């Protein structure tokens, strides 16, 4: 039971942190619960499919299918996170203003929900497929009782969900007018970390074999994974801001490049001089 508890907890934390950020970033937008739930559901279905076809996916592209698949869905998530931030750069203030005026959920912001639902789906799919494979392996082998397995899985799920809630309510304690700035920053780092992770998968697939030596090594201080509390902190920072204890040159370029691209796009789409709010935007 303990092993299933630990594995499920570890994977659910990672997806849960992302769900927590997405929920905070869409605070005040109508129907967000539906979209996030849809993302989670699609992710669970996707995870089962990926687990079912793990062997087939792996054999694609001369044995590098799994790495390229992971890189592709990570890059998809990076694009969706970028889209969210750029959209919020020009609409965030309106949403905050409208929320304050009506004191309730607003309909603006629906379009960015679809993008974030994809991000949630990708996060759940990646972590979920590992959980499915692991639990299936234990069940098939009959090493643990079904009750123990189920209990371990459920406890792990509850623990991960609690982390998600902690992240969400922690972010909500930020004053409303600062909230979207903070979530925007978090989402930028999340995207940068995913881009760096995608580079690693591409390199593990045998492509982009340049600048592969580690730029620094902080594994003695804060390892990126492994057992114990320090390992869990390293893992969480890895998920949240893309922390790596031994990043290589190409990963750093992807990380910094993503931050620059998102900030430039946000600046371009949101010129500092703004038309007064009385003029309706024909695009809406």
């Amino acid at each position: 039971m303990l092993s299933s508890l630990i594995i499920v907890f570890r994977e659910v934390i990672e997806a849960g942190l992302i769900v927590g950020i997405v929920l905070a970033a869409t605070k005040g937008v109508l129907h967000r619960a539906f979209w996030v739930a849809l993302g989670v559901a699609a992710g669970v279905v996707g995870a089962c499919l990926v687990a079912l076809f793990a062997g087939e996916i792996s054999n694609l592209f001369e044995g590098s299918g799994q790495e390229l698949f992971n890189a592709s869905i990570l890059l998809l998530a990076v694009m969706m996170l970028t889209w969210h931030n750029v959209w919020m750069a020009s609409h965030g203030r309106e949403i905050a203003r409208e929320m304050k005026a009506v004191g309730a959920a607003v309909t603006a912001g629906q379009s960015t929900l679809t993008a974030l639902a994809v991000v949630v789906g990708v996060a759940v799919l990646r972590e979920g497929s590992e959980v499915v494979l692991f639990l299936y392996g234990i069940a098939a082998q009959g090493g643990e009782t079904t009750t123990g397995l189920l209990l371990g899985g459920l406890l792990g799920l509850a623990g991960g969900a609690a982390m998600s809630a902690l992240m969400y309510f922690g972010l909500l304690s930020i004053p409303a007018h600062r909230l979207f700035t903070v979530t925007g920053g978090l989402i930028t780092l999340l995207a940068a970390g995913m881009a760096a992770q995608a580079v690693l998968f591409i390199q593990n697939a045998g492509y982009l074999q340049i600048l592969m030596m580690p730029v620094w090594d902080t594994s003695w201080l804060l390892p990126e994974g492994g057992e114990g509390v320090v390992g869990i902190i390293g893992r969480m920072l890895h998920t949240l801001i893309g922390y790596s204890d031994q990043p290589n040159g190409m990963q750093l370029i992807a990380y910094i490049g993503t931050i620059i691209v998102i900030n430039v796009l946000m600046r371009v789409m949101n010129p500092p001089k703004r038309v007064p709010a009385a003029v309706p935007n024909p695009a809406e």
Partner: protein
Amino acid sequence: MHFKHIAFVAAVSVLVSPAFADAPIALTLKDHKFSPATIRVKAGQPALIKMINNDDTAEEFDSSSLKVEKVVAGHSSGNIRLRPLPPGKYPFMGEYHSATAQGVVIAE
């Protein structure tokens, strides 16, 4: 024309994986144990491990120090590429059966 050609070949040679000088290192998993549990590679050179999973269930080759996470389905095999490693010890494990599936890569 020639310059384009040269640039293209240069771009391709960067993108395409380098040929591995040595044959892949075979790593077998049976009853959730790795064999050999210790793998020696030359420091500073890329290496290729071919993991053969002889168990009925999938296993994930997982190593935070090698920066590799690779799922290999039951009765199947998968390639694990190691980047050029500085000399040192790099532990790895089968994440789904970490009690028994343990091993280490030694770069020297």
